[in-house]
């Protein structure tokens, strides 16, 4: 059997795999809100600050939102 069949099968399998991933991600609602995650990732990981730290990072750049 020619190698082209193997290559085609592999490339098709990869393509279809990504296609299924796309369908699944749409179905799970990942694309319903395409805005909030972009803001959420900018929040500080450490949410609770100790009192001494509180003073230090008083003025932080506001995250600009476009509505």
């Amino acid at each position, binding site marked *: 059997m020619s190698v082209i069949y193997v290559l085609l099968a592999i490339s*098709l399998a990869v393509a279809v795999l990504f*296609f299924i991933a796309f*369908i699944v991600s749409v179905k799970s609602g990942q694309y319903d*809100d395409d805005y*909030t995650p972009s*803001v959420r990732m*900018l929040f500080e990981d450490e949410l*609770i*600050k100790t009192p001494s730290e509180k003073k230090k990072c008083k003025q932080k750049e506001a995250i600009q*939102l476009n509505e």
Partner: protein
Amino acid sequence: MEMNTDHCYHCGTPCDKTTIEFDGKPFCCQGCKTVYEILSENDLSYYYDLQGQAGATPKINEGKYDFLGSPEIVEQLVEFSDGNVQVVNLFVPHIHCSSCIWVLENLNKLNPAVKASQVDFPKKTVRITYNASELPLKNLVLLMGRIGYEPNISLADIEPKKKPVNRSLIYKLGIAGFAFGNVMFLSFPEYFDLSSNRESGGEFWLNEYQNLFRWLMFLFSLPVMLYSGRDYFVSAFKGLRSKMLNIDVPIALGILTLFLRSTVDIIFDWGPGFFDSLTGLIFFLLLGKFFQQKTYSFLSFERDYKSYFPIAVTRILPDGREEVAQVYEVKRGDRLLIRNEELIPADAVIVKGNGHIDYSFVTGEAEPVLRQNGDKVFAGGKQLNGAIEIEITKPVSQSYLTQLWGNSVFDEEKTTRFQTLTDSIGKRFTVAVLSIAFVAAAFWLYYDSKNALNVFTAVLIIACPCAIALAAPFTLGNMLRIFGRKKFYLKNAGVIERLAQIDMAIFDKTGTITTSSTTTAFYEGMPLTEAEESVLKNTLRSSNHPLSRALYDMLSEHNIVTIDDFTEHTGQGIEASTELGNIKVGSAEFTGNGASARDDSTAVHISANDAYKGCYVFRNEYRDGIVEVFEELSHKMKLAILSGDNSGEKQRLQELLPISTLLYFDQKPIDKLHFIKRAQGEGHKVMMVGDGLNDAGALAQADVGIAISEDINVFSPACDAILDASKFKELFAYIKASKRAVGIIKLSFFLSLFYNVIGLFFAVTGQLEPVIAAILMPLSSISVVAFTTVATNLIGRKLG
């Protein structure tokens, strides 16, 4: 009292009346200070670092959510409940910045019973998972209210579950794009080796696997034909059945011909077929649809009274007990308790207490009206001052306001009444294409019959009006976004086409052409002395009546005078005595002027030292630029004003507006609707501009219904477009821009016709190679898209 221009650390409003200092920061009121305390005590002060002055003053009225104590109602509200753990999705209108997202997603810092919370910013909703045995829904809502994020829970939330989100267009687009890309790859060998076939030698490798590649392309095209392109067949079939040649007929014809011809080609090994063009065509068409489908998910264009009415009310039983009753269960004769800030759900009569009813939802009138024992009150009014008891005279669905929704105009979809530009061109186009195809086929039958079928299908393929079908979605979709940036939010792209055809504009008066944010008052009567004005100002300070507050803000500063005696006669006025004399402020009767001529307007009467002095007459300020807007519009269309109020303002309006403007007063909601229906019967394309629920019928009946809104997040009746009140003066510019957008669509039709003519030349002469179709079709689509995008952006720049 000294003036202070500090801005509240929490909500950002100027603290000009009283500033509360706390923790070295200014606060405008106790409520804002409390929120700050709660947040800083719980290590949530990062809220203020993220975005300054992002908060809202908490206005929650604890009794208002008593109905959440009822398990049946909670059951209807929550998305999921297993007894302990509940999930609820709440609409919070105040969500507007990153601080909002952050604090709502950290609710569990305030109460550990909250397990998870996730904000959907565009929709302004938050989904909260919480432990209901530790924190019942009612307490959760109160918790949110206390930090200024009161959710909006209305009758619409317990309606039969909303239709699930429709994501089918994304699937269709995804499949078409996936297939398009793969078919393109599989076609590449054929593009580069055009003349290769088994007989003439050529590339051995290609010839060996040609059929495999072709059948793979066929396989990829199948889901595109059967699933992605299905809507075009359905729409064309529907159009044909109702004897209408819409644009989808030639599209469906083109797609079908492409598919059948390509399949036949590969079966008989006549050529590689047009699968690349087929999948590309459908992909581009769907892309246009997707682009046009921009929605403002935080706005709702479908709201009816249910979005504003409460779910439950407090019913007083004959034995004096109170119970929570669902709004729909309220019957004639029931006694209800309406607390401060609660909505009256049905027409009723006041039986106890004094009503200050705010009808701004209904009429747009911002000034509350006074109602006493025995007076009628109407559904949709909001009680502002203390609790009242009312007796229901009509059930919810038959009330003055709500029965409007029984009208059939609310059932029909506006788009079905209107033929779009694209569809109207579709008819001529189909006829032209079919005749060219038949003439060309007839010619070839005579000349070289082998080629006849080839030419016939080639014409249908190349004439497929892909670029025409893309012109409107991209122009209108882009225009929709430009308008959105200018605070003019459209329900869908079709509104622009309808707006361009308007030849009659009808306006509501109160709240639409008048503003509710600033009121002016002028004084009529004997001038007040310095001392009297000083007493008046000091007296008003002690009163909570909305008119007193408004008047207080308007009077100039005076020294503080000690008030020796102060009495408030509810429903009549206030009385105070000071060392400078005594004063009475209130109704005409109360101040000793029984024969007041000005009973058609809102007025505050004054009498000092038992002698009637005069009155402050309140009137609404007309919006900025109203004279200019009406002047400009009057050159292009007929104008009319339909007001639900009495004719008190008639003279002033006649002075302000062009003479041709028709003025009608005392119009009931249903009158407005019928007025528009009549105008449409006379052949007018009507635009209605309104703001309250009483305009809802007219907005639905009009060809374009525009709701004016001071705060787009809070309130707007069902409509086609929402215009931010600050942009009212741009109204004419927006209509002009819509007309230009339609002009652009027409120009793009010519552009795509030009490509069609080139393509038809190849088709008719029988030389249409797949590769030519594969170049020509995307090229025409892309140039149309580029042209419309550039042109609409130019229009947008002109809007400034």
